[in-house]
């Protein structure tokens, strides 16, 4: 048995059951093209009147879009009444196919699912041959929403009493995905809020920094984050209720007290060194190095902002705010003194681990602290000699052994500690949910300040004023190129070629024309800059062969579309899209006429040269 139905058989079966017209969704463009070739010698011809109807419709479309007059698929379309419609085709061809479908002239269209929303024409029947689609280099199962979007093309209002969605298997199809898709509820959709450099610049152009947070709060992203935060808050309330019996006892914070006591006791009784290979005094001290704690480093002083363990060695580390405002990462062992002072600090999920206001406040306090501070007595368990409870008692740190609520504490500790840990986790998560957009925004501000698009007070610099007009992917690379005067002296072809290599994000291999040496060296320069910017912006592919296609089209105004297509293995739909995106990028450069008149002029000359033939047919 063949792994999937033969296209000719498919059309015969559909005609036989009166299931035409149909849209046949196939996995790839290639599959669509091969399906069309399968009809080359087929004799399942349309009756002459229908062939004539197709010719009439095509004639009208061709009158508007001459580029498709010689389209190689026309004979098959006319004879058999089937067509292919995918991203490898020119928009004008796709319009022709859509027009034919609208007039009910065709029996079937072979299309790809990559853009289910891009196929905006219905049919009586939809044929589904796959359960997954390629999304950015990976095959992903169709979601319920996608299955319904695809199946939804079946059944034309006013033309069909019922619509049919028919699955026909091909290797690797998973029927479960499709049956679930047909019968299920579409998934909830989620915000995909990305904060880009142009967004930051444009927002700061129109609003002062202190109004930004309320604006971000208006996003759907924040709406959904709040929903999650509210769920956590409800959980937090529940936890609070469950914590009720574990309120203050003889000591206010009995859970911490018991925890420390218990640990010390265990370490003693097992006589085992601490789990990690750190000196016992460091381990004991580490518990107390919590955010806000004032500590001494030799002659210096600082405030703990966060404690953590290093990635590799898992050694105890702290982030500390030092006198003078520096923020350092140091091993806990460098702490020589743990004071009994803990200052208020509002912690945050990202560096510097507490809010900027908090940092300022802490710094002020730190500078005002008295010269000597009482030290916290920290009990360091000795490895070799267990410390009797009596000694613990005399040290005055732990009242537990003789405390009246000792047995209650012992009994309740495991549950209470677990609940409290959960509380802490929720509080942290809620904070992160409420502030994450703002933090992401601030990260972008930092970068823009570093590159001089924003002042220290987050106002637009002169560079920022024009840079905000570049609102396309890789905007940082483009604005940095302009600042480096990279296009000084570049002709329209070179400028457009570089822009298209920045715009093109498809890594499909192919054989393409070679670039001129001038363009090659310019691309080298762009590549170097893109690499240096990679910590702040993903570098584009910058394919030289892609640049060459654009360079040829603009550099040689006599070159015909067919000539251009022949010089590369790219599908004409891809070439069209490449040049259309290049147009978009160039038109953004054109908006810089006030600050970069030379460049804007080159861009507009490139646009004029680029828009000819096929590229002039559509807006």
């Amino acid at each position, binding site marked *: 048995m063949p*792994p999937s*139905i033969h296209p000719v*058989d*498919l059309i*015969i*079966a559909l005609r*036989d059951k009166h299931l035409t017209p149909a849209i046949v969704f196939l996995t790839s463009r290639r599959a669509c093209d091969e399906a069309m070739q399968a009809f080359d010698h087929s004799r399942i011809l349309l009756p002459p009147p229908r062939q004539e109807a197709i010719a009439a419709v095509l004639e009208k479309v061709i009158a508007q879009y001459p580029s498709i007059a010689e389209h190689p698929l026309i004979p098959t379309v006319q004879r058999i009444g089937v067509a292919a419609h995918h991203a490898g085709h020119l*928009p004008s061809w*796709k*319009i022709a196919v*859509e027009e034919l479908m609208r007039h009910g002239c065709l029996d079937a269209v072979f299309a790809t699912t990559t853009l289910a*929303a*891009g196929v905006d024409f*219905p049919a009586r029947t939809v*044929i589904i041959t796959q359960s997954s689609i390629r999304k950015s280099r990976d095959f992903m199962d169709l979601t319920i*929403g996608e299955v319904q*979007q695809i199946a*939804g093309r079946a*059944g034309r*209002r*006013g*033309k*069909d*009493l*019922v*619509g*049919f*969605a*028919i*699955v*026909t298997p091909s290797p*690797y199809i998973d*029927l479960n*995905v499709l*049956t679930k898709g*047909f*019968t*299920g*509820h579409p*998934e*909830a*959709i989620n915000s*995909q809020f*990305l904060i*880009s450099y142009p*967004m930051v610049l*444009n927002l700061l152009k*129109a609003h002062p920094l202190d109004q930004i947070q309320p*604006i971000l709060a*208006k996003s*759907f*992203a924040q709406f959904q984050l709040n929903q999650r935060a509210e769920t956590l808050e409800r959980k937090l309330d529940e936890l609070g209720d469950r914590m009720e019996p574990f309120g203050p006892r003889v000591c206010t914070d009995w859970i911490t007290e018991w925890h420390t006591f218990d640990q010390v006791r265990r370490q003693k009784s097992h006589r085992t060194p601490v789990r990690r290979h750190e000196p016992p005094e460091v381990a004991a001290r580490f518990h107390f190095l919590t955010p806000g704690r004032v500590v001494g480093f030799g002659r210096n002083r600082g405030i703990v902002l966060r404690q953590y363990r290093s990635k590799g060695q898992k050694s105890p580390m702290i982030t500390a705010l030092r006198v003078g405002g520096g923020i350092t990462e140091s091993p806990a062992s460098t702490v020589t003194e743990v004071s009994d002072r803990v200052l208020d600090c509002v912690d945050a999920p990202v560096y510097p681990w507490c809010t900027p206001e908090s940092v300022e406040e802490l710094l002020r306090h730190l500078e005002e602290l008295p010269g000597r501070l009482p030290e916290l007595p920290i009990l360091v368990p000795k490895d070799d000699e267990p410390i009797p409870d009596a000694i613990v008692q005399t040290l005055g740190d732990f009242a537990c052994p003789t405390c009246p609520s000792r047995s209650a504490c012992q009994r309740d500790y495991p549950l209470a500690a677990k609940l409290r840990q959960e509380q802490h986790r929720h509080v942290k998560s809620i904070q992160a949910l409420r502030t994450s957009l703002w933090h992401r925004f601030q990260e972008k501000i930092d970068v823009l300040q570093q590159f001089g698009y924003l002042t220290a007070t987050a106002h637009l610099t002169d560079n920022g004023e024009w840079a905000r007009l570049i*609102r396309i992917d890789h905007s940082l690379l483009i604005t940095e190129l302009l600042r480096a005067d990279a296009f000084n002296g570049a002709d329209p072809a070179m400028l457009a070629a570089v822009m298209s290599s920045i715009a093109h994000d498809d890594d499909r291999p192919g054989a393409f024309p070679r670039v001129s040496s001038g363009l090659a060296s310019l691309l080298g320069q762009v590549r170097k800059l893109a690499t240096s910017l990679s910590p702040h912006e993903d570098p584009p592919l910058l394919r030289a062969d892609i640049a060459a296609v654009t360079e040829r089209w603009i550099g040689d105004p006599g070159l015909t579309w067919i000539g251009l297509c022949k010089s590369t293995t790219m599908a004409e739909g891809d070439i069209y899209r490449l040049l259309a995106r290049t*147009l*978009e990028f*160039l*038109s*953004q450069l054109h908006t810089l006429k006030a600050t970069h008149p030379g460049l804007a002029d080159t861009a507009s000359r490139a646009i004029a040269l680029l828009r000819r033939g096929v590229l002039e047919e*559509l*807006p």
Partner: protein
Amino acid sequence: MTTEELEQLLAQQPIALLHRLARGRVQRHFRAGKRRLIEVLLRHSAENRAGFESDLVTLIGERQVRPALPSPQTPAARKPKSPSPARQSMHKSAEPESHELAITLSSWLEGLGVPPPKSFVADAWQEEAIAKLKEGDVVVSVPTGSGKTYVAVEAARRAIAENRTVIYTSPLKALSNTKYTEFSKIFGADQVGILTGDRRDNGQAPLLIMTTEILRNLLYDAGGGEIDVRLDTLGLVILDESQYIADPERGVVWEETIIFCPSQARMLLLSASIGNPHDIAEWITSIRPTPCHLVRHSVRTVPLRAGYLHPNGKLAPLFRTVGIPHGHPSHLHPEAKRLFAQYEDETLPSGRRR
């Protein structure tokens, strides 16, 4: 068992058993087709062959105790099937085996055809969406093919009649072009304009079509003080295919557009069916001056039926019922089930080799 034997044994098992076998062994096993699942299971069995084989044998034993589904075929029966019958005869014999619960192919195909011509009467939900725009923003979430364009056209017509500018956006340039043609026919060519990055056709028209990115840029320019298009007379913004708000790369553009849309303009969001349209409506209500009304339904105007077409040309209903059994993905038609099991068996690597 040799690897070959193991592979054969696996190949004979129904996919459900393979899934049970894969549980805890293979990640995302329920996503793989049978062929792929067997490949992965074989690779996995290398690590603990004995445990794997004994589990397999246990599961097979369990199955044989229970009443059998379509019985696992013996290797002999799985030889390449008899030469396929001629195409013509295949279509005649496409009736499924009778089954008490499941419908027949002919009743599945029944009712197929063209409805008698009818004068246009707007649906209640269409009227509702148009009416609610008087009071505030509207989100429409209905199945594909329901008639969202009608709502867009009528809403635009009313806004234009009040001398307001209307902006209609779509996610794709190709869709914009289609709508440009369509709307020009409806409203007259002088009433419709289209804006792209470098071109402006009839930019002074009351109904402007553009991609959502272009509108977002206009709104940024307005925010920066440079009014470009007449945003002060803007009365209505229509965002078609607004489920794109969940697009990983471009979704943010829809959010920016909604956040910065001038407050005097009404918003009309048209979306295919999504799971949480009330979230969208609630969100918009929370950030815009007027309440946002949600219009949704999930019933398709033209009923849909699902079928299964075997590579040999045999057609069967996919489900036991004529319509789609919502909420019951496993109500498969026995014929479709049998054919698909046969397909999986026959397209297995071992089945091919012989």
